[in-house]
């Protein structure tokens, strides 16, 4: 790639991130009464955003280390704040999932949201910008702004379009997350000054802050501050109680986005910020995080099992599934990390689809009580088939996406902590219990309530809402390598980051798969490691040499390397 990718002259990442907001502005020009036009416009905007994000996937160089599609513009130079974006394999997958789920969420609201449609759609689009920004920001201030931008629309979506106890749920949501993010802000500022103290320059550039030397104690505190913010977002047990309330009150599209994307901001935060910035903290806290993950897996599944409200059941199942994600991340080996990231995507698809299915039922019956249903399959056979596939995906049936993620996570965890993995694997049993029991009570059995006898089956639009997700559920299950390819390099980079700067014995260089990576490449990395113990490469190198990226540059790949250099490791 010699030319940076652009769309209409705008660098691709900026386009993808801000196009939804542009769409929101367009919406404001439309009269509120023309609800259909508003809906269609929003859908078109979301679909264009999705289409625009596909080149990120197809043009990405999976074997290359470092960030790609990098954009870097000074923003507040005196403070060292940059508008800087870039993605690695992890971000690409999460961005794609976000653009897909956003479009699907928009389509799902066509019949569900009837009041203040314009505001609702505009908020949804602003929300999308925030989420995409979180996954691409490489500057901590920019990241923090996107992080906070996400909160407001979601707060309003719950608080305005929610159910009976929406105010309580919305306030609980915002209080939990704000408490966490304020601590993180303090952490960011501390890091900022620590970097200045060490290198004499103010910067919020994430890739340079990775190099900041920190004492062991400082790392523990900073990790704690960041981890709290992210743990609340994930949510890890015992910070999870905002989640069921938020989900039960949120409108369907809100739940889809909340579970599908917002929770991943927490796990992504661990992977991109907390762990590589403060490796000592990550290693010191790992046993605790693993313990909380295991508790979350089992606790979430058990509590999900006894729910009487389908939506709450799905919400608690998220606690269990996100426990798996955290477990894989902290296994700190290739399978654990790759499985974890894949499972972030899988959970977005499966749980998003579960919420959509619950929404489809709710629109017909205006209740989510399991006992109000029974025998629905009789009236809605097509829905039943799709709903079952979604449940099977969520419970990790081989051949569907959930299995790949859970298997890799548990394998990774098993290599690190066999007993922990053995215990966590019981979550796989419980997953089958709560989902199939729910399915049995809702979909099977005789029709006991008259209202359920003549429920209409899926409309064409509803079919279009679920079908794309099912396609990905099967695709990831049958041929996950399409997506796992993106995670090879990020997983090894994270392992190096966590092991390199600590006083703990470094783990041996990760094995690359097969013969795809040339020996030369590996040597190149080793060389870089020798120069720069963090192994992070040229971003840091550029910083240390004082080669500030002051001019407006649209770097492709690593900032410092010549744009047409085929690989990093030519010796």
């Amino acid at each position, binding site marked *: 790639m010699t030319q940076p990718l652009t769309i209409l002259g705008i660098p691709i990442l900026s386009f993808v991130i801000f196009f939804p907001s542009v769409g929101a502005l367009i919406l404001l020009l439309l009269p509120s009464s023309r609800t259909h036009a508003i809906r269609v416009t929003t859908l078109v905007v979301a679909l264009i955003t999705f289409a625009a994000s596909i080149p990120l996937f197809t043009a990405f160089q999976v074997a290359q280390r470092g960030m790609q599609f990098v954009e870097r513009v000074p923003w507040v130079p005196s403070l060292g704040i940059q508008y800087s974006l870039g993605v690695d394999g992890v971000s690409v997958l999460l961005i794609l999932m976000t653009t897909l789920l956003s479009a699907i969420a928009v389509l799902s609201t066509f019949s569900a949201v009837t009041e203040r449609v314009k505001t609702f759609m505009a908020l949804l689009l602003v929300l999308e910008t925030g989420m995409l920004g979180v996954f691409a920001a490489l500057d901590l201030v920019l990241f923090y702004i996107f992080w906070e931008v996400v909160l407001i629309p979601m707060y309003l979506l719950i*608080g305005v379009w929610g159910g009976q106890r929406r105010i309580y749920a919305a306030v609980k949501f*915002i209080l939990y997350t704000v408490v966490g993010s304020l601590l993180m802000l303090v952490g960011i500022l501390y890091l900022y000054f620590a970097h200045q103290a060490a290198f004499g320059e103010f910067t919020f550039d994430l890739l340079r802050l990775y190099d900041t030397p920190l004492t062991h104690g400082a790392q523990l505190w900073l990790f704690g501050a960041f981890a709290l913010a992210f743990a609340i977002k994930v949510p890890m047990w015992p910070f999870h*109680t905002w989640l069921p309330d938020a989900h039960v009150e949120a409108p369907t599209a809100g739940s889809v986005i909340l579970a599908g994307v917002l929770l991943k901001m927490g796990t992504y935060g661990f992977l991109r910020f907390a762990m590589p910035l403060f490796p000592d903290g990550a290693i010191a806290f790992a046993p605790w995080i693993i313990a909380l993950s295991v508790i979350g897996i089992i606790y979430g599944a058990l509590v999900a099992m006894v729910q009487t409200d389908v939506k709450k059941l799905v919400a608690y199942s998220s606690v269990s599934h996100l426990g798996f994600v955290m477990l894989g991340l902290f296994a700190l080996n290739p399978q654990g990390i790759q499985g974890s990231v894949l499972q972030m995507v899988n959970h977005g698809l499966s749980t998003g689809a579960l919420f959509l299915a619950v929404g489809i039922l709710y629109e017909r019956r205006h209740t989510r009580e399991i006992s109000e249903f029974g025998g629905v399959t009789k009236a809605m056979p097509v829905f039943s088939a799709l709903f079952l596939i979604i449940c099977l995906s969520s419970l990790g049936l081989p051949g569907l996406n959930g299995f790949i993620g859970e298997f*890799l996570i548990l394998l990774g965890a098993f290599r690190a902590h066999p007993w922990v993995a053995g215990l966590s*694997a019981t979550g796989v*049993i419980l997953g089958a219990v709560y989902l199939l029991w729910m399915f049995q009570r809702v979909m099977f059995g005789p029709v006991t309530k008259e209202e359920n006898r003549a429920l209409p089956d899926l409309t064409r639009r509803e079919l279009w809402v679920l079908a794309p997700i099912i396609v990905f559920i099967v695709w990831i299950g049958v041929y996950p390598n399409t997506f796992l*390819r993106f995670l090879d390099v990020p997983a090894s980079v994270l392992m190096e980051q966590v092991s390199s700067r600590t006083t703990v014995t470094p783990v041996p260089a990760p094995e690359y*798969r097969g013969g795809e990576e040339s020996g030369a490449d590996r040597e190149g990395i080793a060389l870089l490691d020798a120069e720069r113990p963090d192994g992070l490469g040229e971003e840091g190198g550029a910083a240390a040499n004082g080669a500030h990226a002051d001019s407006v540059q649209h770097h492709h790949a690593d900032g410092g390397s010549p744009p047409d250099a085929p690989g990093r490791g030519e010796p």
Partner: protein
Amino acid sequence: MSLQLLWLVPILPLLGALLNGLGAGRLPRKVVSAIGVGSVGAALVIALGCFATLLGMPGEERFFAQTLFSWIDSGDLSVAVRLGLDPLSAVMMLVVTGVGFLIHVYSTGYMNHEKDYGRYFSYLNLFTFCMLMLVLADNFLVMFFGWEGVGLCSYLLIGFWYTKPSAAEAGKKAFIVNRIGDWGFLIGIFLLFVTFGSLDFGRVFTEAPSILPLGGGMATAIALFLFVGATGKSAQIPLYTWLPDAMEGPTPVSALIHAATMVTAGVYMIARCHVLYALAPTALLVVAVVGAATAVYAATIGLVQKDIKRVLAYSTVSQLGYMFLAMGVSAFAAGIFHLMTHAFFKALLFLGAGSVIHALSGEQDMDRMGGLKKHLPRTHATMLIATLAIAGIFPFAGFFSKDEILWKAFSNGGPILWAAGVIGAFLTAFYMFRLYFMTFHGSERLTPEAKGHLHESPNSMTIPLMLLAVLSLIGGLIQVPLLQGGQRLDAFLEPVFADLARVGGAAAHGAAAAAGHGAAHAAHDPGQEIALMLVSLAIALAGIYVAHRFYVKDPQAPHRLAARARGWYDLLWNKYWVDEIYDARIVQPIVRLSNRLWKDVDAAVVDGAVNGIGRKIEQGAGWLRLAQTGYVQLYALILTVGLVVVFGYLALR
């Protein structure tokens, strides 16, 4: 036929499943039947062709592998979707496609009145696909795919009549109990990967003897965890409780999945992993003991059940116990032999029972049958053959396979395991002839409705019965004991189990025994073998004699006995109350715990702490409330102003 076509064997049924699944409710019945039966029939033809090709190759070279695509590549883990054909998987492939094909044909008659005809065939084809993936898999993960896939199909087919609460419940129970077993399988896979760095059969089984010390902890752990998986799938103690309930499914499903094929997957898995088990004598002993115990235990429950399908279900559990007993005494080939003959006669028994049920418009209670011999002549004749086969009467198929297991149990395992097997044989002969006499002989106890409906089944059902009857009659002849050159199945499987010789030491004995011929076998006294054979034959005949006394000569005798031994009768009738014990001791406590976690811990402790902190702050600092306007816009403003102030300070400092 070129072995390159092997991939079509599983793929054709998958295509059938997709076509019938997507067309469900729209395709005409004839088309559904053509797709459903045709896809499996074509798979059978190709399977036979592959088998013939395999036979044409020299013994040691009978292996063919086909990589379809790479499935999961992550770090040092690399798993491909790869099929492997060797004599063992070939036998399984033929059983699955052969018996499967007959049952598909039978289903066109049995399910003819069914509204969801397309859905039924879609599931049945999907099952065939998954089962073929299971037996043709060349690594543990693809096997696990098939393993859980057949579990899903079992769930779907048991709950086929989903409006019936008991059917939906039974389907779910089957899936969950299987999942408990699969947990063990999964841990076994993890251990294998940690030990071998690969999940490929070839690599694991080749390297196992050099990596794992004989009788070592790792070998034992791997073997036992895998066995946990087998107890779930193959309904052994303690995870057998789902199988009797699975009889809620349509009867052809019971024949195909819950008798002939899926439930034998655990046996196949152990046979496949024989090298690992040979390295873990303790695990083998566990397998043998669990198998023998299950064989006797399930048979005792079968003695008193009234539902014709339930008797057959407990019989299946018991027969599977025999197969595990064989595995446990390292008689791997004998276990596979019994797996095959059992597939013939048990499928026949279920299909025959289905024919009876069909004739009586759904009646399953044997108390309301009797005297059907003259009404259902074909069903009667074929059922009698199957009953003689399972009872182990010479020269029916079951005689040869069961006897070989008993003989190996005696020579490799000792008199106690042998005695358990013989007791089981007696019970089997008794309860099977009880079933036969109660159904076909004695007075007609039919309900008026059933009587009016009574008719022999159509050809689409009786022809599969007759073909299976032929197999049940002559199927044992591929493995005749004592006769020079009579052990054709042993000879065919020999290359598969030959690697046991490399395990060395204590297991070598088992290796030679498994290989079935050669020095170790000849060293045994043929006179002893014949004597034991006569004993078990006599025992089986005794069982038949008692059944005849009880259910033909003196039909009041069972009632008198039940009245005299009320407690024992209740114990067996209630299946030792195991379901109730599991519910009270495991299920209910977990539900109670979960409710407490939700209502007490979540609401009271976690939320309480947060709300409590909130209240404390509110009490302590009332003025803060002034800031809590509830306008988020204001909060956002304050946030922004705060940021500006902080950065402004930093910039100007």
